C-alpha cells in the first residue's frame, strides 16, 4: 500500500521538474478485497491494490491532465511531459481557476485499524454465516463482502498539501426463495461497529414478512420509506443540487435559494464531527471539508458550487462531504397508525430523471413491499413503478423515524410520506 512518504516524495519530484505555471498533483491509492457470492456460493474473489496518479497543469489558462497508475520516476516524467504537451496544444479556458493555496484542513477520523486488518479468512467466515442462514431457510443468498483501505493525497503549486487515510467495510445480502426476495446492506468505516448477527436478523425479519405477495392496484398511497429507500433517491437529489445549473435555469431549484422549497420537516446537512460517518477532509480539487447546512426546515440554504462558480458568484465552494438527514422519533408502528392505510417500501431501484427541469423522477420499489391498514401490516404486495416530483414529496412528509447510519457516509431516517404516486404495478 502506497505510503504518505512515497506520495510526498513524488510531489517533490513534480515540484522540481514541472515547468507549468500551475499544477495540481493528486494520488489515490487503495488496497481492496472483495468476495462476491450468489446462490449460496462464491462466484468472484478479487484482491489487489489500485493506484491513480494524476497531474493537471496549466500554462496561464491552457490546461492538460495526465493520469497513470504507477509512481516510479519514469512514470512521473511521462506524466509531466504528457500533461504539459496537452496544455501547450490546448486552447485557453475562459473559466480557468488557479489551484488551491494552503489551507488549514479539518481533523477527521476516517480510518480504523480493525477494518484495515480484516483478512480474507474473516471475510469468508462472514459469508459462510450468511450462506448457512439462507440454507436453514431453504433459500438462496447472494451479495458481497468488501474491505477497502484508501490513501488520498493532493499537492498544488500554490501550496496546498493534504493527506487522508480511510477504511470501509461493506456487506450486502439478497435472500430469495420462489417469489420472495429481499435485501439488507450496511457499510461502516470501523468494522467494530458492524453487527453481522443484527444484519442477518434484519434480513430474516424482512424475508419472513414477505410471504405470498399479492398485487395491489396502482394509485396514490401513504408510504413508509425505510432508510435505504430514502437514501436511494437522495443520492439523485444531490446529483442535481448544483448552484450553477440552477442559476442557469436547468433544474427546479432556479431562484429558490433561501426559499421554502422542500417540506418543512426536511433537513439535510453535512457534518465532519459525526463519530460514525466518514467524511472528506478535502475534495479532489482541494476544497476543505466543512460542516454545511444544505436544507434546513425545508429552506434551501446552500447548494453545491464548483471552485470556479463560487469565485464568480462570491459563494462558498462546497459539495456534500457526507449526508445527514435529520430524523424524528416515530416508530414504524406509530407511523402506521397515523394514516388509514399505506405501503412500506424497503428499497427503490433504477431511479432516473424524467424531466430535469420539473424535478420529476421515476423508479421502482424493490426488495419487499408491505401493505398496512388499521395500524397493522396486512399483507406482502408486489412491486410498483412510481413517477414523482421528489422535492414536492418532501412537503408531504407526515412523520420521521430516528436517523440511523445506513452507509458509512450517510445517516438517514425512515419517512412517512402521504400520497406517493405509484403509476404502475409490476408482475412480481
Amino acid at each position, binding site marked *: 500500500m502506497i505510503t504518505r512518504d512515497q506520495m510526498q516524495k513524488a510531489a517533490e519530484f513534480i515540484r522540481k521538474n514541472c515547468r507549468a505555471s500551475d499544477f495540481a498533483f493528486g494520488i489515490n491509492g487503495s488496497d481492496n478485497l472483495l468476495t462476491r457470492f450468489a446462490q449460496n456460493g462464491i462466484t468472484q474473489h478479487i484482491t489487489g491494490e489500485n493506484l491513480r496518479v494524476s497531474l493537471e497543469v496549466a500554462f496561464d489558462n491552457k490546461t492538460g491532465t495526465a493520469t497513470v497508475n504507477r509512481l516510479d520516476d519514469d512514470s512521473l516524467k511521462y506524466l509531466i511531459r504528457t500533461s504539459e504537451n496537452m496544455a501547450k496544444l490546448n486552447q485557453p479556458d475562459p473559466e480557468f481557476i488557479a489551484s488551491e493555496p494552503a489551507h488549514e484542513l479539518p481533523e477527521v477520523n476516517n480510518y480504523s485499524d480493525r477494518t484495515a486488518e480484516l483478512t480474507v479468512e474473516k471475510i469468508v467466515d462472514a459469508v459462510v454465516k450468511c450462506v448457512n442462514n439462507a440454507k436453514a431457510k431453504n433459500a438462496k443468498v*447472494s451479495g458481497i463482502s468488501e474491505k477497502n483501505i484508501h490513501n488520498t493525497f493532493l499537492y498544488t503549486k500554490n501550496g496546498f498539501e493534504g493527506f487522508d487515510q480511510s477504511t470501509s467495510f461493506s456487506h450486502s445480502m439478497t435472500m430469495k426463495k420462489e417469489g420472495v426476495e429481499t435485501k439488507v446492506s450496511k457499510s461502516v468505516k470501523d468494522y467494530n461497529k458492524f453487527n453481522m448477527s443484527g444484519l442477518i436478523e434484519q434480513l430474516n425479519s424482512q424475508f419472513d414478512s414477505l410471504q405470498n405477495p399479492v398485487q395491489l392496484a396502482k394509485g396514490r398511497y401513504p408510504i413508509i420509506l425505510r432508510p435505504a429507500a430514502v437514501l436511494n433517491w437522495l443520492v439523485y437529489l444531490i446529483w442535481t443540487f448544483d448552484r450553477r445549473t440552477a442559476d*442557469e435555469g436547468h433544474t427546479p431549484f432556479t431562484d429558490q435559494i433561501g426559499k421554502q422549497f422542500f417540506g418543512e420537516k426536511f433537513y439535510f446537512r453535512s457534518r465532519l464531527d459525526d463519530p460514525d460517518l466518514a467524511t472528506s477532509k478535502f475534495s479532489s480539487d482541494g476544497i476543505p471539508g466543512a460542516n454545511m447546512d444544505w436544507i434546513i426546515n425545508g429552506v434551501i440554504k446552500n447548494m453545491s458550487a464548483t471552485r470556479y462558480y463560487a469565485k464568480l458568484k462570491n459563494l462558498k465552494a462546497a459539495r456534500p462531504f457526507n449526508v445527514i438527514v435529520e430524523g424524528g422519533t416515530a416508530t414504524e408502528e406509530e407511523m402506521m397508525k397515523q394514516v388509514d392505510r399505506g405501503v412500506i417500501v424497503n428499497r427503490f431501484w433504477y431511479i432516473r430523471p424524467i424531466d430535469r427541469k420539473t424535478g420529476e423522477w421515476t423508479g421502482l420499489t424493490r426488495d419487499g413491499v408491505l401493505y398496512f391498514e388499521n395500524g397493522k401490516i396486512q399483507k406482502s404486495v408486489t412491486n410498483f413503478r412510481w413517477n414523482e416530483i421528489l422535492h414536492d414529496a418532501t412537503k408531504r412528509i407526515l412523520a420521521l423515524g430516528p436517523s440511523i447510519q445506513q452507509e458509512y457516509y450517510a445517516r438517514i431516517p425512515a419517512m412517512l410520506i402521504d400520497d406517493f404516486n405509484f403509476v404502475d404495478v409490476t408482475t412480481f
Partner: protein
Amino acid sequence: MDFLSLAMDTAKSLGADYADIRIQKSHTEMIYLRNLSLKNTSLQEVYGYGIRVFKNGAWGFAHNNVFSHDAVNETVKKAFAIAQQSGRIRHGKGLVLAHERGYIDTYKTPFSIDPFDVPLSEKVELMMEVNKTMLNFAEIKLAIFMLESRKDEKLFASTLGSRLDIQTVYIEPTFTATAVAEGDSQSRTFSLGGQARGWEWVRSLNLTDKAVQIAEEAIMKVHADSLGAEERRDLILDPNHTALTMHESVGHPTELDRVLGWEADFAGISFATPEKLGNYQYGAKIVNFVADNTLEGGLATAGYDDDGVPNQKWYIIKDGILNEYGNTRATAPFIGMEMSRGCNRATNYYDFPINRIPNLYLQPGKEKLTPQELIADTKDGVYIEGRGSFSIDQHRVNFQFGGDMFWEIKNGKKIRPLKKVIYKSNNPEFWNSVDAICDERFFQTFGIANCGKGQPGQRGRMTHGGSYARFRNIRVGGSQ
C-alpha cells in the same frame, strides 16, 4: 522467461485446474467542453495484469501493476490462495468450465487513422466549432461536447496454451444543446454511442451540420407541447432509440449469469429462465435478435473474449422465440452447453471478467419498407428519436422509457413536435407488439459504451442495431 509463461507455469506448479493472465494497457483520452470552457482535457494510462486461478470449482483473481519475476509469482500465489478460500463455499458442487482449446492469434480493430495520433488541437477545434454553432442560437444556453477515445492493448495467455494479442479502439463523440425558454429547459443530443473505428469515422460525420440540427430541435422541443394523459397509441421508434430498449429488455435478460441468479444482489435477475428456451414467445414472428461479436465496428468485437473464446454470431431470439443466451465458460455448462458463446469481458486489467451483453441487433424487415411509408401507415401514434429516460425492474419485465425527440403522428403525418413523452410496457408485450420493421436499407448500429454492471462496477461496451420499427397499442403519455 516472459511474464505470460511465468504466470502460467507458476499457476500449474501450484496445482491450478485452470489459469489465465491478461496483461492490459488502456489509454483513455477525454475532452469535455462546456460551452467554450474546456473543463477536462485528459489522457489516462492504466497498465497492469490480472490473473485468474480456477481450483476445485472456484475462482480467485488477483491483480498487480508491478512487472517483475517476484511480483508476477506473488500475484499468482495470491489468486491461488483466495481461490482456495472461495472453495470453502463453492457454488453447488463447484463451477465447471465449458470446453475450450488454446489459440495463438492476433486481432486489431480495423481503422485508418489512430485517434491517438490525431493532434489534440484538431479535436478541440472541431469541438469548439460545434459548440459555437449551437450557442449561436439565442435560446441555446448550454452546449456540452464530450469526446472519448480509448485504446486497449491486451496480451492473454491461459493454461490451455492460448497466446492472444488483441488491440481494440473506439471513439465516442457526444454533444448536447440545451434550450431555456418559457420557464423550461429541454435538451437534444447527438450521440451514436461510439464505434470501434478510427478518426476517419469522426471526420465523415459532418458534426458541424449536425450541430445546427441538434440546436434547432432543442429549441423546437422547449416550445413544444406535452402529450397529455396516458393512452394506448402506436409507437414508431428510430434505431438509436431501440438500441437502448433492446439493451435493457433483451440484452440484459439474456445474460446467462443474470438468468442463473448471479446478479441477484445488485443488477438483478431475469424472467427469461432456461425452461423458456425454444418455446417462449419473446416477440412477434418478425422479431429476430442476432448476437454478433464479429460485427465490424462493434464495441464488443475483439476477436476473443476474456475467457479466450473466439467471437461468434448466433440467434438470441429467432422468429420471436427465445433461442439462446449470451454466456461464458463458467455459465454455459449450467444449461448443458458444452461450449461458451464468448461473452466474458473485463474493462480494465484489475477487473474480473463478467458475463456481458454481446453486440446485439434486431434484424431488418424482409419486406421493402421505408420510415416514411411506416409513418404514412400510422393513424394515431408517436415517433421517437434517440435515447432519454429509461428504467426497468430487476427481473427485466416492466419498463418505462422516454426519448430524445418526439413527434405526434395523426392520420399518417407527423403533425407536431412534443416533449416529456414517456411510455410503459413490459416483456413479453413490447416485442410482441411489433408489426413492422423497415428493411435493411435503414439498418444502423449504435454503441453503448457505459453499460454499468458488476461489483466493483465495470463500464462495459457493446453495439446494438436495427431499422425503424412500429410497436402497436403501447401506453404512451406525457409526464407530470
